[in-house]
């Protein structure tokens, strides 16, 4: 990864969430043109609008995505704008949705399908693992599946059971799938545009608790940059972002855990400790370079994820960092993850989710004295 990517570039939307949110509230009061406070939901919706305008083969379908606009309103207005042929409701069957999307992708379309909730995507698992992931390989690259499976995932919204699973590890473990997960509105826009344009199938994991968080974004400017390929070579695929620079330790996070990592870094700064925050952005392909560069610089790392820690993306990250940075490490790498229990009901989720205190405790444990 080139240094120009790691330094925040407002044009590419790589501003840290904390900075963006402060600016967003300022812009809202000033009512200025250009960058506006934009929710991740709006950024995702706009990305689909722009993709559908640019390419007639882009179709959006799933459960309740039509008139209702999706249970999270991410597809709001698409049916009205593009008609029932390009955005439509399907029968209530996830395997059917993904399997039909495979056929459409075989026959020249770019389907973008919505799984209503993380845990409701499991009926589609066979299609995803046996066909979506393998079609390109088993046809020697003759058949490409340019399709996106959008999955609202993870917890923190007070959802009842089966509505808050962190299912990213299942997909990341499957060879042949790309797995994206944005943490800011600007990244959400750009990453969804890239996912839709990708010739490989992408599991697009949307942290549902960030749907309503706002960043300061100029969506039209993002569109111009993306479509003019003005930023050619700066694809976000396989490129982590340094969301906050620091020198003493690296917090590695993705999707729903990025705001917690940033909050922990802000709190640590008040205590005189400088923490760097790396936002992974695309779990597959993984940006070893940026992560390793950061850990070599700081010598300490904590990996943060909402998902269960056992046999997970967070365990993979620890293994990769250890393999690449062993001689630079001043302390064993720590993890702050969800406990190895089924995602808890809202009354207990507060105890489960990695929060600022638990992250700071892990940082404190990183052998700061020789």
């Amino acid at each position, binding site marked *: 990864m080139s240094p120009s990517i790691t330094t925040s570039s407002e044009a590419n939307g790589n501003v840290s969430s904390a900075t963006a949110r402060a600016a967003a509230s300022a812009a809202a009061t000033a009512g200025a043109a250009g960058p506006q406070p934009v929710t991740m939901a709006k950024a995702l919706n706009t990305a689909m609008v722009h993709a559908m305008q640019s390419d007639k083969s882009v*179709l959006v379908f799933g459960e309740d995505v039509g008139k209702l606009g999706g249970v999270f309103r991410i597809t709001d207005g698409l049916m009205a704008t593009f008609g*029932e*042929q390009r955005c439509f409701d*399907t*029968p209530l*069957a996830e*395997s*059917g949705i*993904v*399997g*039909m*999307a*495979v*056929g*459409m*992708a*075989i*026959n*020249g*379309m770019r*389907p973008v399908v919505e799984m209503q909730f993380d845990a409701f995507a499991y*009926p589609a698992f*066979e*299609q995803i693992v*046996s*066909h979506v992931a393998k079609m*390109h*390989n*088993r*046809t*020697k*690259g*003759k*058949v*490409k599946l340019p399709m996106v499976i959008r999955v609202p995932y993870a917890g923190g919204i007070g959802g009842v059971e089966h509505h808050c699973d962190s299912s990213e590890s299942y997909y990341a473990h499957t*060879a*042949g799938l*790309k797995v994206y997960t944005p943490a800011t509105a600007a990244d959400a826009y750009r990453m969804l545009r890239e996912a839709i344009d*990708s*010739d*490989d199938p992408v599991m697009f994991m949307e942290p549902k608790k960030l749907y309503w968080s706002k960043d300061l974004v100029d969506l039209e400017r993002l569109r111009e940059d993306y479509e003019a390929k003005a930023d050619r070579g700066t694809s976000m695929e*396989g490129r982590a972002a340094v969301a906050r620079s620091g020198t003493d330790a690296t917090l590695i996070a993705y999707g729903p855990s990025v705001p917690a990592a940033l909050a922990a870094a802000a709190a640590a700064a008040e205590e005189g400790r400088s923490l760097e925050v790396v936002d992974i952005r695309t779990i*597959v*392909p*993984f940006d*070893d*370079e940026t992560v390793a560069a950061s850990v070599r610089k700081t010598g300490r790392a904590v990996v943060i994820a909402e998902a269960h820690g056992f046999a997970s993306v967070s365990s993979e990250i620890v293994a990769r960092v250890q393999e690449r940075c062993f001689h630079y490490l001043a302390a064993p790498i720590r993890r702050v993850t969800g406990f190895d229990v089924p995602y808890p009901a809202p009354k207990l989720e507060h105890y489960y989710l990695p929060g600022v205190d638990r992250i700071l405790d892990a940082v404190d444990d990183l052998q700061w004295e020789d």
Partner: protein
Amino acid sequence: MTISADHTAPGTAQAQPGPEQAEDIYLPGAAAEAVRKFGITAEDYMLPARHQIQMVDQDGNLKHHSEQGTEPGHEYPLPGDHELLTAYAQLVIGRRVNDQNSALVRQGRMAVYPSSQGQEACQVAAALCLAEGDWMFPTYRDAVAVMARGVDPVQAMTIFRGDWHGGYDPLEHKVGIQCTPLTTQLLHAVGVAHAAKLRGEDTVVLAMCGDGATSEGDFHEALNFAAVFHLPVIFFVQNNQYAISVPLAHQSVAPSLAHKAVGYGMAGERVDGNDVVALLAVLDRAVKLAREGSGPLLVEAHTYRMQAHTNADDATRYRQDSEVALWTARDPLSRMRTYLAGRGLLDDDGEARIAEKAESVATQLRNGLGEDVPVDPQDLFRYVFSSPTPQLKEQAALLADELARDAAGAASTAEASE
């Protein structure tokens, strides 16, 4: 309760029935079409005819029209002579391929072969009923159908020789890769048909599965999606009586598998799966109806898997020889030969020409599968994504280095021993 043609399928976006129509049931587009076309009720269109359609009996005699199982709205004209002769030639080739492949498995030239012996009529009719530009989505037991669509025989057997890819280009032949996970490919067929329909193309898609597969969830989802979106898909079920060892009675207690169609609002039909004449008649009409916009159809063919599930299976553990003998008498080849000869369409010269063609395909298989194709270990990484990720490049380099060191080691050992 009455069925009214006032309401059409959701795809046509008609208003919901008002309170004054509350007694009416919703009439899907396919049924409305049938009511208009055949003047029969929607139920009579969607339910299969009372008897399976059979045109040529097991002794090779053309049955009288009144005994073919047809009914108003379920009528099937006799296919043309040219089509019948083409079908017979393909039957002979298909049987020869099944025999040849079973031999190649015994010789260790193929890893596995799920033979369609006894089901060749279904294989041939499935391929011949489609026009150029139509798609087929086969299972692992449908290699003969795949070949009959024009795929090179050796390429069609690539999976069974244990190679890592599907062999042929699905886009070139409009034939999906032979699918092992049951009924998952039916949804791909639905998607291909849906995409074509959205572009205004008149593509028909034939989706194949077996009797056991109808228990799978994707069977249900595919039929329902095809019906709701009113898509030109023919679901062709080869009911060969067994799912490995489990007989149909343990899969379903429906009156027939074709009866499942009515539950989705589509038409179903049963046909003698060892009578290629009836199969062609039924499938040709299904393709025509689908292409004209009548929506999806379900065709169940009654046939029999004469061999074990694969060479790894032992059919004597779960079925009697007497049952197999019953089906030997119903062989699809011999009855077609008798029928065509009786009509003066096939003589010894014609038979010899077809046998020669079949033998050349068998030779092609023996030569092709007998050849040791060199493998490239780097193919492991080449096609996982449209371009390899940094991680895959790293792993590819690791393997290349390992192989280079092995080769160097072998070379120095050879040198030392000289």
